């Protein structure tokens, strides 16, 4: 019961750090002014165009594709697989399980292997490619270790040593509805959950901030229309003081 309590507390703690940490960061990005129009051109000239550009960036990693096919392949496979795996895991948080989550199950299974394969490719590059080796910090390796650890421990519970999945689901639903239940004391499960909680905790303090960051990147999310529509962002120094509309604040274009 001690173990269950520790994990229960950790779950709440990690969820709070993740949610509030990320919310703070998003609030910070949204609050910080973008004083000038700096889209990387050629850029869309309409809002709708920007939505398309951003979608291509987020869904297909368009810029990365232009840059390096191997990094794109490993990175895209990892992220797409991670998405499927997360969708598959929804069944541990829902009762009854949503029908489309049921459909996603087999895909989520294969995706587990694809995820680890993609991560391995990315990690390999950090050793093999001299330029990437040069720019890698210990934390870059540890982040990959963490994700690979999550992936392999998860796969082990499916293919090597089955865990008490019913007991786990009871524990998680208990957490969600504040009616605590015991957690099955399976070492692989404990490692898997521990690593996931660690990931949630470091998320708002690490390079994983690229996830919200990409949406706030002025190089990608600005409309290229500075001549057609005068762009004025809030700017806390008196740059425009003395001008007819100095200090005027309006939304970002």
């Amino acid at each position, binding site marked *: 019961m001690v173990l269950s309590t520790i994990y229960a507390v950790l779950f709440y703690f990690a969820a709070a750090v993740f949610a509030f940490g990320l919310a703070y*960061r998003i609030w910070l990005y949204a609050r*910080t002014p973008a004083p000038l129009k700096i889209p990387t051109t050629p850029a869309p000239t309409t809002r709708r165009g920007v939505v398309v550009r951003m979608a291509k960036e987020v869904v297909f990693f368009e810029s990365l594709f232009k*840059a390096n096919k191997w990094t794109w392949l490993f990175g895209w496979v990892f992220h797409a697989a991670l998405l499927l795996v997360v969708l598959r895991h929804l069944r541990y948080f829902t009762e009854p399980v949503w029908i489309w989550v049921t459909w996603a199950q087999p895909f989520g299974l294969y995706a587990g292997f694809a995820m680890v394969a993609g991560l391995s490719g990315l990690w390999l590059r950090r050793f093999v490619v001299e330029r990437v080796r040069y*720019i890698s910090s210990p934390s870059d390796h540890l982040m990959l270790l963490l994700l690979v650890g999550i992936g392999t421990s998860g796969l082990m519970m499916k293919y090597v040593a089955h865990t008490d999945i019913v007991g786990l689901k009871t524990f998680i639903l208990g957490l969600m509805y504040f009616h605590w239940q015991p957690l099955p004391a399976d070492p692989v499960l404990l490692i898997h959950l521990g690593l996931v909680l660690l990931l949630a905790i470091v998320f708002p303090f690490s390079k994983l*901030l690229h996830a919200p960051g990409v949406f706030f990147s002025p190089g990608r999310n600005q409309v290229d229309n500075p001549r057609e529509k005068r762009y004025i962002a809030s700017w806390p120094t008196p740059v425009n003081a003395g001008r007819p509309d100095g200090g005027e604040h309006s939304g970002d274009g």
Partner: protein
Amino acid sequence: MADFEIPSISVPIEIPTLNRDAMKHSSPFIAAPKHQEALGFPGELVDDWQSKAIDKFGELLSKSRALQVYMDSCVKCGACTDKCHYFLGTGDPKNMPVARQDLMRKVYRRNFTLAGKLVPWLVGAEDLTEEVLDDWYTYFHQCSQCRRCSVYCPYGIDTAEISMAAREIMDHIGKGQKYCNEILGKVHVIGNNLGLPEKALAHTLEDLEEDIEDETGVTVKLPLNQKGVDILLVTPSADFFAEPHVDGLIGYAKVFHQAGVSWTISSYASEAANFAMFIGSVEQMTLVAERIRKAAQDLGVKRIVFGECGHAWRVAYSFMNTLVGPFDFLDPDYPVPQHICEFTYDLIEAGALTLDKSANDHMTLTFHDSCNVARGSRMGNKPGGQFEIPRAIIKACCNNFVDMAADTIKEGTFCCGGGGGLLTDDLIEIRTKGASPRMRALKEVVEEQGVTHMAAICAICKSQFSKVMPSYGFSMDQIVSVHQLVSNAIVLDGQVVDDAENDVVTTAKNTDSNGDIATA
């Protein structure tokens, strides 16, 4: 002649192996106290520079979403590592965009992030030591702010924004760069980067009028400070005397003449370039841009047209309206500002110019997309107009045109090596080496397609190439202005054509144009 090794361009562009500290010795001259103080910066390195720098860093983070997001978002994927022309030319790993950014990001982590404060060794966080500051000064002056890396970054992280912020911080602790800051002083006092006073400018323009009359038999005016005209031309001061820039200026004059519009140059705003962008100072950038607004108002013009100048066009196109707008006193039927290429292109489209392509038959042209035009601005109504319009002009003026390799042009274009405040003799080594990717791409079309000349629309590109091309076995006159090609090809009304073969084109086909050609 050079005391450093010129990269070989006999092979295609390739990724070099790392050569640590290969360019560590290359720093530009430090700004003298008088140049610093003229811009409101401390004259020399202040005593508590470390804490002042961190304070300024914090201030910039709170004022620039780009800086804040770019500091946080890099995952070190390595996509940018082989994209910088200075890295390709030197192999110095600190010239890889991510590593250049990390010079600043490691200080960010140490001072502004939890992980960097708790476990600096784990996340690669470092204090701003004297050694780190020296690296900043060295390597943030080996970035031409060309934005090529930002094209390939999955988050659009733009090293230009980061090097601008680093230079802004260094200026505020008294470690500014001589070249940029001295020039900004000249702009404020004299009106242009070269320090060319009004009298000399007037004299130069008169000489050019004589040259044109001698060449064509037609009187083409280059007016200075003329009030009440339609157009204020703002052009880089190099256009007034440097080669091949001046041939471009002659081209603009001929186009204006043939369009039948009235125009003028202003001695007060006799400079298009805005070097304040290079040092990341929005305050300075506003002051420099303000001159152009004031000149337009004082002269009572209806339109503003910019000459061939890359960074100038980025500031003019992207920032000027924000900084010193609105320009509601100008004619709303035209974009503010307008690029000379847009102006000429509209006339060509309207059939208002007679162009004799054979006048450029002695050349086979290729086009160097200037970095800040390509990735920081636009021409015309559609994205990518900045690539199509100059090419359309060249093709309308020349029979022989070929593009260089696809990954070295348009949005993937290489900087000339001299942009972003690096066009100074004390940086000739990095400039020369940084030009090597472009030189390789050029060599390929020279050898395979018989290209003889490369055209550009940026004063820095033109100056840089005329300086470094001889190091690569080219001659300095192989770089030409786009409007030089227009100047060669355009047939003015009443022009004396001495070549009998060209008689057929001497009848101007369209003389009813009054120049009021709207932007398509």
